[in-house]
């Protein structure tokens, strides 16, 4: 149900995404993340078009960590920041991190080899129902995403919403 993708640029790093619905303890989870007790990024799935968007953010975060150019304090906060179309860090957390009342969450882990231990650690902490990661597209709020990333109807003629979002994430440093 989870999705693990090796980062071709960093062959000893993989990214695992785990999606939960009917989450009852979002506030507690958010608090644990703030205190650094959860080794992962907790993302609001309504702002995600698909798993590829998360991979693009995670790959960029690892790259910036390795080259000493991160804009935030940790790899996991950098992943959340990279999802945002602009350079405002607190806004990125507000929009792409989870909020206390949320009932769904995408957990993103970056790890070396085997993810099974990390996976069970996370699953134990989340009071919710794990669903296939691909279901994230049924949770996305397309209208909100289009508004935040400023995607025009004509742009969707030459590509998908995911294309539009990924392009902005990848190029925001020089816009």
């Amino acid at each position: 149900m989870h999705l693990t993708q090796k980062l071709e640029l960093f062959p000893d790093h993989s990214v695992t995404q785990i999606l939960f619905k009917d989450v009852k303890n979002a506030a507690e989870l958010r608090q644990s993340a703030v205190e650094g007790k959860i080794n992962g990024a907790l993302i609001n799935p309504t702002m995600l078009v698909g798993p590829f968007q998360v991979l693009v953010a995670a790959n960029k975060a690892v790259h910036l960590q390795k080259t000493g150019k991160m804009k935030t304090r940790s790899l996991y906060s950098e992943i959340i920041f990279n999802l945002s179309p602009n350079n405002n860090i607190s806004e990125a957390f507000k929009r792409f991190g989870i909020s206390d009342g949320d009932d769904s969450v995408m957990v993103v882990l970056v790890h070396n080899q085997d993810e099974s231990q990390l996976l069970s650690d996370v699953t134990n902490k989340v009071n919710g129902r794990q669903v296939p990661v691909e279901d994230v597209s049924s949770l996305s709020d397309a209208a909100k995403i289009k508004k935040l990333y400023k995607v025009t109807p004509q742009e969707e003629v030459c590509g998908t919403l995911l294309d539009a979002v990924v392009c902005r994430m990848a190029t925001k440093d020089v816009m």
Partner: protein
Amino acid sequence: MAQKSCTPELLSGAELMKQGAEARLYRTRFLGKPTVVKQRFPKRYRHPVLDEKLTHRRTTQEVRSILRCRKAGISAPVVYFVDYASHCIFLEDIVSSSTVRDYIASCPDQDQDLDLLVQKVGRILARMHDEDVIHGDLTTSNMLLRLHPDGTKPRHEPDLVLIDFGLSYISALPEDKGVDLYVLEKAFLSTHPNTEALFQTLLHSYTAASNKSNAVIKKLDEVRLRGRKRSMVG
């Protein structure tokens, strides 16, 4: 703590598809997707500091113009990742495509399809210029045509994909747009012999599609005249 970029290591195991004067193009998989990596390399004869600046500028110009075109509904490859440390752009691989150059070369002369194709090119360049994007290196090698997986017939409009924006810039001046077309005309006629009529078809479609084409075509005529005078003198 800062280390070097990991991109060169990935590229050392990737398929080199083209070695140009300014850049190398590789095919690889990236985040599970077929991807083209365009790497600009240093020019040894330039001063290193200047070279670094120029290479960085080409890279940023390329991704900026791709985004600007896409926002206007003009197809260009999706940018997946930019590594400014090694001057690499990771782009969507436009799979089962042909350059317009190869497509024209493989078509029989007088083919009806060719008229339709160059009309499409004219319309798209008109839209690009209406967005004030000057491509800077318009050739038929810098346009890709998505093909049907089975055969060779081009499909509808978004299937013409513009690439290679490293020399692009933003300008509203008719002169800059006229020169952009002049560069294309020179390249077109020398790459594809006996296509004067076909290029006229392209220009007609450009003129019909652009709101501001009159001033641009006037400048094109002036630039042509200057070109001719220069070659008469020299």
